[in-house]
Every structure is written in structure tokens, then in C-alpha cells.
């Protein structure tokens, strides 16, 4: 298997799907690589900086037989297109009674940790999860990035692809050939018996690193990566928690009304899983502040390995206490 970067894996996914299906088109204010060379200016469109119109154009073209990929670039920029995301994309199929499909993929980079301060360091997937009507992918490895994005492009619904900036240069093995990862299937990235860590995006490799360290202390961690937030594979998450009895959920969005909160609730709300819990459910998330610029402040705002470890120790300690 080849080792390629997360970014390269995403580019390969797009190029392969464009080769496979002439109805796949690209709209973005800018591109990485040079897709025009291969696919021509009809299918690869440099757009004006007009996120609202290009978000809606994706829908209009999708409802008219094409499969557009709209790249917002940073999720930050998508906020000027809120009408098209919230009022149109997420609702268009349902409110028209399923008359047409809207196979559009919206791509964006997310997250902090790269010194870009508050407006450019955001992880708002839960806002989109909340809408009911958009699918959401959130890969953590190059292989998943490629496989999930290819599935998203082939999916007949609006899908938002959140691509973690801090993972862009991370490398990893990616299977050759037409590598697909289905939407709605979580993956146990490491098996363990004592504590489940549910990691999102950047915090999957971080959780794996923590698991490695804690293994030296005899603590066995299971790391689960949901990979898609909508549809969410809650069964795999619950099964892991039923096995370990302890769960720590790690993400870089603030905890309030977050994907981490939703996962915590879905775990706690299932009677069978709840009965297996030996300690309360923990979330390790960013502090509820706009992400600051100065590196000391940014580091303090976002979760780190120490925070994850501390949460693991807490759930272990709590479960030893007599009732």
C-alpha cells in the first residue's frame, strides 16, 4: 500500500470520481493542484468569491442532473451562505416530497491549532448535524479521507465533508484501486478493554497516541472513530462502551451542543449501554471561547493529550469508588 498525505488522498478522491463520472463538476474560489488541465474549464469552475451563490448553484445543478462538488475551502467562508445551507440544501428534498435528488458535496477545512485565530479556527459540524437533512463526513486518516469523500460524491444527497486542517499533511497507507468507505460505519481504530475513547478527526490519532502511552501503564484503551456524523453509527459506539464500561469523547469543538454532546447523550440514553457504565460519561472538548491567536492561549483552549489522559484517569478512578 502507498503512503500518501491526507490532502493528497482527498485530491485523488476528487480526480478519480471526475474520471469515473462526467457529471461530477467542481466549483470553488480556488483549487489545489491543477484539475483544469485534466478536466477542462467547463467542469472545473473558478468562481467569484460568492459562497451563497455557489452553494445554491450546487443544489440547482444537482437537481438538474449533475453531481457538483462545491469547495467552500474553509468552513469559515460557508457562513455567508447560511441561507443556502440551512434553508435550502438541508430541506430541499424533504419539502418537495422527494421529487428530486440533490447529489452535491460541500467540502471545507476545519479546526484550529494552526495559529489562524477565531474566525479561521472553527469546527461547527454540530450546527449542520442539527439541521436534519445533510450527511456529514469527518475523516481522520488518509485512507478514510479518500474512501469517505468518494462515497460522498457518489451519494445522492447533500453531503458536507469536514477536512481537518491539522491533518492535511499527515500521511498514512491508502489502499490502491477504487477504495470506498461507506457512510454511516464507524471504525474501531484500536481494540481495548478498559476505556473507550471516541475521537473525532484530529483527536483520533491523538487518542491512539494516548492509548499507546497508557498501555505502558497497563491501561487498555479502545479507540473508536465515528468517521461520519450523519448518519452516525451509534451501534458501534455503544457496543464499545458496553464492552469497556467507560467512555471519554474528544473533540476540538466547544462542548456546548456539540457532536461530542450528541454522542454522550446517545450512549447514556440507551438503557443497556447505560447499565454497563462504570463511570460517568466524559467530554474533552475545546473551552467555550473563540479560538485565540497567541500559541500559549490557543494551546490552552484546545484539548491536548494531557487532557485526554486526565479524563481517562478520572473515569478509571471514579469506577473504583464504592457506590
Amino acid at each position, binding site marked *: 500500500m502507498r503512503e500518501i498525505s491526507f490532502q493528497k488522498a482527498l485530491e485523488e478522491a476528487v480526480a478519480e470520481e471526475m474520471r469515473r463520472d462526467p457529471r461530477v463538476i467542481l466549483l470553488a474560489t480556488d483549487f489545489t493542484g491543477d484539475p483544469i488541465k485534466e478536466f477542462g474549464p467547463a467542469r472545473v469552475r473558478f468562481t467569484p468569491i460568492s459562497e451563497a451563490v455557489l452553494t445554491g448553484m450546487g443544489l440547482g445543478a444537482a437537481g438538474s442532473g*449533475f453531481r457538483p462538488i462545491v469547495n467552500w475551502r474553509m468552513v469559515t467562508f460557508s457562513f455567508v451562505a447560511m441561507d443556502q445551507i440551512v434553508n435550502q440544501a438541508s430541506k430541499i428534498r424533504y419539502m418537495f416530497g422527494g421529487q428530486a435528488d440533490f447529489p452535491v458535496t460541500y467540502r471545507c477545512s476545519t479546526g484550529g491549532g494552526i495559529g489562524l485565530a477565531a474566525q479561521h479556527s472553527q469546527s461547527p459540524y454540530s450546527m449542520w448535524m442539527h439541521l436534519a437533512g445533510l450527511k456529514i463526513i469527518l475523516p481522520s486518516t488518509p485512507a478514510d479521507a479518500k474512501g469517505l469523500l468518494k462515497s460522498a460524491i457518489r451519494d445522492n444527497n447533500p453531503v458536507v465533508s469536514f477536512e481537518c486542517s491539522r491533518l492535511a499533511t499527515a500521511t498514512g497507507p491508502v489502499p490502491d484501486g477504487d477504495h470506498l468507505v461507506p457512510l454511516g460505519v464507524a471504525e474501531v481504530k484500536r481494540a481495548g478493554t478498559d476505556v473507550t475513547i471516541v475521537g473525532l478527526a484530529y483527536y483520533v490519532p491523538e487518542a491512539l497516541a494516548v492509548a499507546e502511552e497508557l498501555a505502558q501503564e497497563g491501561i487498555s484503551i479502545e479507540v473508536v472513530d465515528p468517521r461520519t456524523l450523519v448518519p452516525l453509527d451509534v451501534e458501534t459506539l455503544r457496543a464499545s462502551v458496553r464492552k469497556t464500561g467507560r467512555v471519554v469523547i474528544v473533540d476540538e469543538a466547544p462542548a456546548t451542543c456539540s457532536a461530542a454532546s450528541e454522542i454522550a447523550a446517545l450512549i447514556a440514553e440507551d438503557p443497556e449501554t447505560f447499565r454497563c457504565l462504570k463511570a460517568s460519561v466524559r467530554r474533552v472538548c475545546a473551552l467555550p471561547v473563540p479560538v485565540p491567536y497567541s500559541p500559549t492561549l490557543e494551546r490552552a483552549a484546545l484539548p491536548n493529550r494531557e487532557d485526554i489522559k486526565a479524563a481517562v484517569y478520572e473515569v478509571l478512578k471514579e469506577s473504583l469508588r464504592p457506590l
Partner: protein
Amino acid sequence: MALDKPQVVQMLRTMILIREFDERAIQLRVAGKIYGAVHPYVGQEAIAVGVCSNLTVSDRVTSTHRGHGHCIAKGADIRRMMAELFGRVDGYCKGKGGSMHIADFAVGMLGANGIVGGGLPIACGAALAAQLEGKGDVTVCFFGDGAAAEGEFHEALNIASVWKLPIVFVCENNQYAANNAVAVQHPGVDIAAHAGAYHMPGVIVDGNDVLEVHTATGEAVVRARRGDGPSLLECKTYRWHFHAMRNTPPAETRASDEILSWKARDPIARLEQHGLERGVLSAAEIGTIRERVKSDLEAAVAFAEQSPFPDPKDLLVDMFAD
């Protein structure tokens, strides 16, 4: 351009149908038979009909919150429209959309829209699809004068112009956005004035004259089909009724002489007059058209009333495609 008799008859019939459909919708809403909001199109019929009479079924349109006229003019079935207003399972959206979300993708009607300006980007996407397909299809984007103050309007005109999209922007300037007159919402009275900034033709049309709307749209459609890009038509018109109603029609806030002066320019009476004068229509034929519209509407209401309500067990159906 002189239209032949079948064309005039077809236009008149469609305009009367649009008017009577909405008059009927108001009655049904007052009677509590339908639900939600009604935004009547009465007074603006010449625009939907004059524009859509230039389109084929593979041309697409996007619509607004005041969309019943656009649906009918594009060829939607009034029985399924009525069933949608009644919230029944045989409605276009199986009762999930209602008045503000009627769509019929089979006839290229890509949906009414509850958001002012929301349809403009979607129309550009449909026009992009047509451009890529290269079969000469066009998209018409209907919107109100109110929408011209939204950012989406300016983004849409800009991108359509840079990419020479096959699209016709049709502004229905009925003088008001809800209860606010154009003058308090825009720096100038003409929405068409924006066209110049985006390097496209901007044409002001008498929106109460179906023939003038037909001709002006025809030129814009030919230009779009030819690959020469977008046009902006501003159709000056007036809505006869309130902006929107729920249980009862709201009190009138506009000057009565203003309303009367516009009613004197009734687009339907004008077409009838034109037909009579040219001898392509007789009073008896007009009477027959009106009778036919009445019975078609009765049939539509009956169809809607006997259609079942959707089963709540189907609440989640249609969320996602397979």
C-alpha cells in the same frame, strides 16, 4: 409580434386560471379548509404567463413565496397543487411542502421558495447545468423587488454575467415588499438599473401587458439560448390583495386610489380587449373559457378533498435519497 388565436386563447385561459386559483385559495383559507399562509398572485398573472409562454418543458424556472402562478404557467397540474394546499398525500410534495414549496420537477418547475432571494442561486445552478448540457435550454428566475436588496441577488447576477449563463432574471416589481414600498427599500425606483453594473441588458416591461412581457422575455430567451448570457427583466405590476394571509385577510394599508388605478390596468381585461379588437376572440369564447376554468377548479378541489392526509408513519420518508 401578433399571436395567433390558439396562443391568445391559451394565454387567456392560463391567466384566468391563475387568478381564480388564488381567489379560490383565499376562500378556502378563510373557510379553514387549507392551512398555513396564502400569498395571492392576483394582478400579476401577465408575468408568469408572458414569460413561460416562451419556455419548453425542459427549460427550468425557480419561484418565490408567491409561486402558484409560476407553477400553473409552467404546466403544473392544478389538482396536485390544490392537494398540496390541502396538505394531502396526492399533493406535489405529498403534503410536506404546502403553498410555499410547490414544485414539479417533471415540468421544470424547481420549486417555490419561502426565503426572499433564496431561489436566485439555485436558478444559476440550473442554468449552469443547461450550459454544460449544451442543448440550448434556459432557466428563468422569478423574484420580487424585495429580493433585489438581498446579497444573493447581486451574487447571482454577477456570476451569471461572468459565466454567460443561459438565464433570464425576472423581477416582478409589484411596488411593495410586504408592507414597504419600493421607495423606502431601494435607492432608485428601477430594479432593472442593476443590470448595467453587471453588464447585461436590463429591460423595463409593463408587467400588466402579457404581450409585452411575452415579447421582451422572448428576446431574452433567444439571447440566452444563443449563449450570449443573462438578461434582467423588470416587470412593473401590482398585487391586488394583501401580501399574505393566515386566518383572515389583513387590513389594507395602501391608498385606495392607488389600488383602483392599478385595477384599471387589469392584465386579464387587457388581453380580452386585445383579443376582441383583433377579432381572435369572441365574448362567447371568453365565457366558455371562464366556465371551463371554474369546472376545472371544482374538480381540483374535489380531487384534493378526497385525497387522504399523509400517514404520520411516513413522516421521515423523503429525508434522504438512497
